[in-house]
């Protein structure tokens, strides 16, 4: 697919809007359907499209495996970190109201951060799975 101009141009045009839509799904989860799991998958789809069209090497140059491994863990740490911060604020674990002291802002901030953690982990895990599967034969031949 690398040398087909239609795929290359289409992938270049689609890459940014897919990520934008993923971010919309990510941060609009409080008000409509969506959330970290779906957004993570959508954002990963943009990177997978890039990898499919421009080749796995280009995809790995864009997001290196080492960085991706860290990002996987960072997502879980964001989620757990919100719980720990709410502990330090005097509330229970994952009690978002304790984050700011008021229900309105606390719940909003807590849920957005938690969903962000989910999204970050899901994105990087999906990308890692794709790179691992697609790259296995290439690396072992």
């Amino acid at each position: 697919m690398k040398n087909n101009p239609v795929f290359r141009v289409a992938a270049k045009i689609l890459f940014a809007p897919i990520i934008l839509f993923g971010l919309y799904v990510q941060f609009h989860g409080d008000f409509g359907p969506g959330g970290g799991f779906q957004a993570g998958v959508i954002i990963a789809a943009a990177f997978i499209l890039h990898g499919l069209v421009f080749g796995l090497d280009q995809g790995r140059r864009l997001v290196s495996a080492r960085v991706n491994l860290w990002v996987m863990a960072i997502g879980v740490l964001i989620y757990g970190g919100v719980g720990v911060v709410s502990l330090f604020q005097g509330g229970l674990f994952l009690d978002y109201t304790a984050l700011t002291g008021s229900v309105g802002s606390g719940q909003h901030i807590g849920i957005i951060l938690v969903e962000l953690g989910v999204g970050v982990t899901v994105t990087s895990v999906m990308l890692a799975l794709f790179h691992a599967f697609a790259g296995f034969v290439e690396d072992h031949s």
Partner: protein
Amino acid sequence: MTSIMIDMFLLGLLVFIAVMILRTGKLFAVIVMSGGYSLTSAAIFVNLDAVDVAFTEAAVGAGISTVLFLAAMSFLPAEEKAASKSDSTFSRTLIASIVCVVAGGLLVFAALDLPAFGNPNAPAHMHVAPRYLEESGALLHIPNVVTTVLASYRGFDTLGETIVVFTAGLGVLMLLAGATRTRRPDAAQSTATSTARGKAKKGAAK
């Protein structure tokens, strides 16, 4: 009425795709049709007003799973192995169909006991659901109940799910990418450095 007709059409489509998946022996066609199966299921979820579930099914089932299966397909031969004639295929088919009919019959029998769709007195709607629906908006100031249940009421569950995704990713990486790492040093670390070294060696030999 239209809703029921749409449901029936989509269910028929599901059965049709399932039969097609069984009939074809080509792995590529099977994977693509499984994506179509997921997309049809997502349409059914939309018709049942479960938009969040439909969204997830469309993104994960029809989107990413298909791509991951296609990527994993490169390990496998493209076509199904032809069944060898020596096996008694008839008795095998007989046993398989008996198991299918019995298991399917049990599922249908169990489904008869389920409350009707949308029944307000169903156990699922009697426990905590009314509290979530009525109070979560005023209590937590978040309009989407699905999100409040997922992230706030059931925050521990979702933390667990995230850790499951993380662990699954780690597991696959250990199985697949770990193998490449042990192989890398003796094969060719990176082409750039190895060629550079080769040139340096040649230069030294001269």
